[in-house]
């Protein structure tokens, strides 16, 4: 019982308070693109479930639909939409890219002094190559802090990281069916760019460093989008005791071009959980939805039930949920309000949070984002308030 309380406190502290400070951000995925009728990810992204290198079509849509326009509406995507702002022209089958994201973070937790820091959240290069129906993709980057689960080197900081690397085969001609093997972002829920949202953190399904090695099959056809992955473990983690094995997957149905509804499921087993240090049978199951009543507004929602059976240490049953409203009054400017809640399980009160966010895609390949995050985080001894301000400067190649 005492061990269980210790584990519970540690989990609450780590997940509730420290992850935002440690995390480095990953590539972009914008599920709010459903406002333009894009229910699926594949036309724009090399990864069938979103994020990763952009296709030529995706680069064009980024220029036409995402960024601020000054003056006349775009007749065609500008030459700067290409790789390195148009300096490099590549065949459509070769998708290269890179991301740099710098964050300036200030966090005030009740009873503690304000912590300020600047973080190089992401500095990655990535590539995706198609040859006939075979695909090869990967990323390589540098993480001064965090992203330890994706590290190729073994330091506590200043690591080389590779978040994704896989080989794939397009089963049909247009790539609607894709089988991949390698290190892959887990298919689960909404692939948010806000990887510290509790629905991502509690389920361990973010784009930052929770990728796993395994085999995945995806389909994106007609009204259905789905991916299921056999998880074989994170082979950038040692020793083998820490590696989770199991499955993760989602299925989404889009009855119209502005509504998508999905379900997710995950189950893993690790001999020693990376955070809890004991044998952990971990599962998460949930629902999610994306809806856009019109071009001004996109609404995302997700709710997940999480359960961990800890051998000889009881169990933790909890949940995480979020609702996000994204308002784009003028192309390129997004105002977002996100509400979230979670309970890690055990003797911990529920946590609640609200994000007020503003994002400005001010120029080709560049955006700036400001988040004000108010959270009351449940701990064994009661709720603790936390206020976070995060300014991000982002550019992609």
């Amino acid at each position, binding site marked *: 019982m005492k061990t269980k309380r210790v584990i519970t406190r540690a989990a609450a502290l780590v997940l509730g308070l420290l992850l935002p400070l440690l995390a480095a951000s990953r590539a972009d995925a914008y599920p709010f693109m459903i406002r*333009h*009728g*894009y*229910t*699926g990810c*594949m*036309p724009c992204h090399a990864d*069938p479930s979103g994020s990763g290198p952009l*296709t*030529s*079509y995706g680069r*064009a849509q980024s220029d*036409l*639909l995402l960024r601020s326009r000054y003056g006349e*509406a*775009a*007749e*065609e*995507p500008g030459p700067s939409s290409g790789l390195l702002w148009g300096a490099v022209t590549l065949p*459509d089958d070769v998708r290269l890219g890179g991301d740099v994201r710098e964050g300036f973070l200030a966090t005030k937790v009740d009873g503690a002094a304000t912590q300020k820091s600047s973080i190089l959240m992401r500095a990655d290069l990535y590539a995706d190559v198609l040859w006939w129906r075979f695909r090869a993709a990967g990323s390589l980057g540098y993480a001064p802090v965090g992203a330890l689960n994706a590290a190729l080197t073994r330091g506590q900081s200043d690591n080389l990281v590779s978040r994704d690397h896989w080989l794939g085969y397009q089963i049909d001609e*247009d*790539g*609607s069916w894709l089988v991949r093997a390698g290190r892959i972002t887990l298919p689960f829920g909404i692939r948010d760019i806000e990887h510290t949202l509790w629905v991502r953190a509690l389920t361990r399904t973010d784009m930052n460093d929770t990728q796993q090695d395994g085999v995945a099959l995806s389909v*994106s*056809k*007609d*009204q*259905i*989008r789905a991916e299921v992955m056999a998880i074989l473990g994170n082979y950038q983690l040692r020793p083998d005791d820490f590696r989770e094995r199991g499955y993760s997957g989602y299925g989404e149905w*889009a009855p*119209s*071009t502005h509504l998508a509804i999905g379900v997710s499921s995950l189950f893993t087993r690790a001999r020693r959980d990376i955070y809890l240090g004991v044998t952990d049978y971990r599962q998460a199951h949930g629902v999610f939805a994306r809806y856009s009543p019109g*071009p001004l507004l996109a609404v995302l929602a997700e709710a997940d039930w999480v359960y961990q059976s800890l051998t000889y240490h009881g169990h933790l049953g909890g949940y995480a949920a979020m609702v996000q409203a994204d308002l784009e009054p003028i192309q390129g400017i997004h105002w977002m309000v996100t509400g979230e809640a979670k309970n890690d399980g055990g003797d911990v009160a529920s946590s609640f949070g609200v994000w007020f966010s503003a994002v400005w895609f001010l120029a080709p390949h560049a955006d700036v984002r400001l988040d004000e995050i108010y959270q009351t985080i449940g701990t064994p001894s009661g709720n603790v308030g936390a206020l976070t301000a995060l300014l991000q400067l982002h550019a992609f190649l």
Partner: protein
Amino acid sequence: MEFRSRISRVTVIAAVLATSATSRATFSKAIEPVVSFTAVGPAGMKIQGTTPELDVAEEGDRVVISVRLDHLQTGIGLRDRHMKEKYLEVGQFPSARLSIQRSALKIGDGPSSGADVPATLTLHGKTRPVSVHYDAKKSGAEISVSGGFSVKMTDFGIAVPSYLGVTVKPDVDVTARFRTTGT
């Protein structure tokens, strides 16, 4: 720009014309018409376009529905421009026309009625037969009509849209609905 029109079933015209098998009705201008098409791209990508511009007229023993194409919208400006200028060439072919033999249309009082009827579609300067499904419900003097058809755009000389590696399939579904009054 990806736009692929394959018109399969247009029923709206049929419903408007066939108020009864025996009487020769006349129809008012279409009320609150909505015409939409759905085209499909790779990997589940779906494009929907709409226009409110639909007219119904009688030409001899046929009912003709005309849809102006120059106000079709898919929600993305560049895509609309490519669709209209490059593929549909609305400058030369501003309208699509669906012609149905009036005697093939049956609309009676009471519950909704529907059927499949043969029709002739003129699109992009070419005329081809199509099969149209319609549903019509008459309530007093007002007739509510909905229907659709499928079309393969290449049958009408429309090039298959392809843009930056994204190619739209040549088959397109068209639906329409409107209300009218018949005498």
